């Protein structure tokens, strides 16, 4: 893995900055742990044995490389050649398993026996609980109370796997508050605990570390696309909440200027309504959860509550590398509303027999939006790789309610 060195690997700098973004805005009590983690990460990535063990786990346990599937019936509706990167087929049903296996190996390497995690839709929580079971680690997952209710199935999964799920009742009771609570736990228990953070956000080295563990998505997709089509894609698309799946697939293409990168944020009811989770489109530069990035905030710097039909995207910040990719103009970020996402969700179900995560449905909806413009610009049908980051089992209840198709007693 990660054999191809790229110019984009030069970021972050030694202090964890991506241009003006990133860094460490944390209590001093955590700095020693972040330093330890940074050193462990650097040593591990340089260690052949570590890389080989992770590669074996990813292949034999997680089931990667995931397929790159040409969605012909969906393509016909989109007006583009759409290739789906099937991260939904990974063990635990999402790209998240790549990150947790890497971090679980690091946890063992640091000699720690306990992991904590935060989760929104639950996919990261399920992945963390899975890795904890596999590595015999104690696992506590913080989840906003609102999310425990809308993701009850995943809460049950985590408990089956032996994790303790703690519903967080402060603030907006969603992913943001789960992250606050996990940080508090970490401050108090940092000696024996690793914070197995679920996205490419948080203080340095987390954004770089998570990127390293998920970048295989893009490495695989790039090679698979070349094999299948003989060329690089015209565009790569992904949904963006915290942004780990998007970064994972983007990273391999950052140094290919002919490949357009599109991140689709959760536009909720529409950015103009204020009820959304589009941090880049509708937010401003600030500091949240240990990093400088784009944040949904009011005039006083208080974090504003986000909204999305997708619990996994319902977060008022974004990983700092995305903030940098936006400001540098390398990637384009656009909002997708709840309704647009659900229309794309339904379309993929009916054309391909694949029920996507609602997160991933945002990427599908955004693809529908940009395909026409791309075709006009290129003067031909574009090839677009979409990161289908997760499967929709966990969202069946939400989607069933949205479409009004649940039978009531």
């Amino acid at each position, binding site marked *: 893995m990660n054999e191809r060195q790229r110019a984009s690997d030069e970021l972050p700098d030694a*202090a964890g900055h991506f241009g003006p973004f990133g*860094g*460490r*805005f*944390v*209590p*001093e*009590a955590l*700095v*020693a*742990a972040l330093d330890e983690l940074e050193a462990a990460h650097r040593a591990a990535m340089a260690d052949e044995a570590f890389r080989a063990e992770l590669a074996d786990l990813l292949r034999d346990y997680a089931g990667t490389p995931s397929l790159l599937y040409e969605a012909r019936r969906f393509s016909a509706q989109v007006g583009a050649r759409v290739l789906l990167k099937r991260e939904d087929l990974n063990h635990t049903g999402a790209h998240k398993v790549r990150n947790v296996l890497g971090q679980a190996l690091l946890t063992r390497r640091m000699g720690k026996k306990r992991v904590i995690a935060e989760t929104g839709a639950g996919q990261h929580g399920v992945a963390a609980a899975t890795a904890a079971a596999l590595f015999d680690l104690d696992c506590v997952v913080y989840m906003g109370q609102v999310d425990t209710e809308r993701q009850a199935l995943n809460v049950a999964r985590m408990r089956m796997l032996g994790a303790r799920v703690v519903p967080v009742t*402060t*603030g907006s009771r969603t992913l*943001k508050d789960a992250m*606050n609570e996990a*940080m*508090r736990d970490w*401050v*108090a*228990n*940092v*000696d024996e605990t690793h914070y197995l953070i679920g996205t490419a956000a948080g203080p340095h080295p987390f954004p770089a570390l998570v990127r390293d563990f998920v970048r295989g998505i893009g490495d695989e997709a790039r090679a698979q696309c070349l094999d299948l089509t003989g060329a690089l894609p015209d565009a790569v698309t992904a949904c963006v909440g915290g942004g780990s799946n998007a970064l994972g697939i983007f990273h391999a293409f950052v140094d290919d200027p002919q490949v357009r990168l599109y991140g689709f944020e959760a536009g909720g009811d529409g950015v103009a309504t204020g009820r959304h989770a589009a941090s880049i489109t509708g937010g401003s530069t*600030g*500091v*949240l*959860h*240990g990093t400088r990035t784009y*944040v949904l*905030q009011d*005039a*006083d*710097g*208080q*974090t504003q509550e986000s909204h999305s039909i997708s619990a996994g995207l319902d977060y008022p910040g974004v990983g700092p590398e995305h903030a940098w990719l936006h400001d540098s103009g390398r990637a384009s970020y656009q909002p997708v509303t709840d309704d647009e996402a659900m229309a794309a969700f339904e379309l993929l179900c009916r054309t391909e027999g694949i029920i996507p995560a609602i997160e991933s449905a945002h990427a599908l909806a955004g693809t529908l939006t940009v395909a026409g413009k791309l075709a006009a610009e290129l003067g031909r049908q574009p090839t677009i790789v979409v990161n289908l980051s997760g499967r929709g089992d966990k969202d069946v209840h939400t989607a069933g309610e949205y479409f009004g198709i649940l039978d009531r007693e």
Partner: protein
Amino acid sequence: MSRIGVAFDKARADGRALLVGCMPAGFPTVEGSIAAMTAMVSAGVDVIEVEIPYSDPVMDGPVIQRASDIALAGGVRTRDTLRIVEAVAGTGVPVVTMTYWNPIERYGVDAFARDLAAAGGTGLITPDLIPEEAGEWLAASDAYGLDRTFLVAPSSTDERLTMTVGHCRGFVYATAIMGVTGARSQTSQAAPLLVSRVRQVTDLPVGVGLGVGTGAQAATVAGYADAVIVGSALIRCLVDAPDEAAGLAALRTLSAELAEGVRQPDR
């Protein structure tokens, strides 16, 4: 020397520690918080720490978060905080402000420093800002003659401790425990060691916070620190009270007990 430096010198001459009492600005209301802080001063609290309420206080436990949520729900703004600083500083006690970093960045770092100095504030405690990320604040605090208090922790290496203390002015904040705010039944074993490590690298006064809630605990910490910093236990007086008058009465009682404690250090 800042007003807080004068207070530390006087307390040292008297052989005692200072009592620093913390309260979120705007809790339960703007006027209510001024009344609470004034009551603390009249009951013997030497320095008032005004915390700017923040939506995501990762270093704070449930009591402070609840009080901050009440303040924010009541519509308190950063400029209200400055009005509170001005009102409390008017009583003659040194007022130090504690804040998570984002509200200051949003206000404008230089503008905030200017307005805080104009309001009579002595400086800022920054729980989530380490010196490496503090370039703008270092410049602004220099420009307006404000103290800056960074935190040191039991986990700080000697190298980091020296670097951090080197950027402090006014006093150093030693976090007594690895954990969030909230009164505990026992004070920390790690704190005396941490204070002695700080003393090896600076003459600045050292304040110890996190975990102090009784007069006896205050006396223990006063035995080795220059300031005893109390937040959650004082705030709980108001959070738990049936009405404002009862809250203020409880606040006065606990403030007096803590003030007595810092005057009888366990040495």
